[in-house]
């Protein structure tokens, strides 16, 4: 049975609507700073591609294209479940909403497992030039180090963001399963959703930038 939804208005806001809009604006501003952080690295990756196309192709042949593609699909599906959770929260359907959030977090964990396996394969194939004392597979191609290091920096930073996202999702699932959550904090589901969609968005750019272009 559907229950009422809403927001507990804090004293410094005039209305529920103002509080809702302020929270969303704050999240968007935060996400834009994150976007600029990632964009700087994407530009670096593209510049390396333009300056050293052969070295980048040599590295790209070692990247696990199918794991990258599968992970993109996993995040797209996870975003769908996040959208379902948001729509269910708007209808006051607390229990299925929490289920969707848990599925979203589960898909995030699946992404991390695949990523961990990919890193393991990279390590086994000696594609870790930043590790001192370990032989680098493309040692005769110094420019390839730039792209390989950038690959680890970009995917590592994304993995940190995703790990934080999974943590927030699990925390929100726990909080949202409490009685009366949607009557007081419905907009927190939407704010969490914005962050999750952003993680998906960043990976949608990471996949072509690192794995796909001019393989």
């Amino acid at each position, binding site marked *: 049975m559907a229950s009422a939804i809403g927001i507990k208005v804090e004293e410094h806001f005039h209305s529920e609507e103002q509080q809702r*809009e302020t929270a*969303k*604006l704050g999240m*968007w*501003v935060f*996400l*834009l700073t994150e*976007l*600029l952080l990632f*964009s*700087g690295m*994407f*530009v670096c990756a*593209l*510049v390396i591609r*333009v*300056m050293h196309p052969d070295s980048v192709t040599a590295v790209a042949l070692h990247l696990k*294209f199918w794991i990258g*593609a599968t992970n*993109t*699909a996993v995040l*797209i*599906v996870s*975003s*769908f479940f996040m*959208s*379902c959770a948001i*729509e*269910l929260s*708007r*209808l006051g*359907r607390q229990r299925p909403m929490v289920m969707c959030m848990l599925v979203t977090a589960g898909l995030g964990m699946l992404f991390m497992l695949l990523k961990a396996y990919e890193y393991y394969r990279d390590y086994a194939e000696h594609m870790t030039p930043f590790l001192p004392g370990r032989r680098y597979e493309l040692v005769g191609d110094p420019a390839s180090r730039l792209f390989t290091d950038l690959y680890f920096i970009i995917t590592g930073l994304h993995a940190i963001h995703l790990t934080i996202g999974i943590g927030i999702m699990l925390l929100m699932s726990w909080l949202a399963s409490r009685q009366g959550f949607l009557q007081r904090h419905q907009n927190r589901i939407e704010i969490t*959703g*914005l962050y999750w*969609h*952003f993680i*998906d*968005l960043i990976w*949608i*750019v990471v*996949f*072509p930038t690192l*794995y*796909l*272009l*001019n*393989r």
Partner: protein
Amino acid sequence: MSPELKRQLRTPLLTMLALLALLGTNVLLGIFFISGHMWIAEVFIATTMVASVIIFGMEAHKEPPIVRLFSGLGFFWVAILFTLTMVDYATR
């Protein structure tokens, strides 16, 4: 499933299917069309995917003008960053 819920889940479902189809297209391009100028199509598809996530996933089109302004400004700055940098390197 109530008709209201079905109606509200329509956009997320269609967005997911469109994104998966676009991803599939990009993967096929990456496998079968490795060289040449196929990167233009791949970048176009990735840009379409990003726009779909922002508009339909993050529901930017439903936001108030101030939020739309901020979201647009962020990507405008990114566009300046990419354009100026890549024009420099691509024309050397």
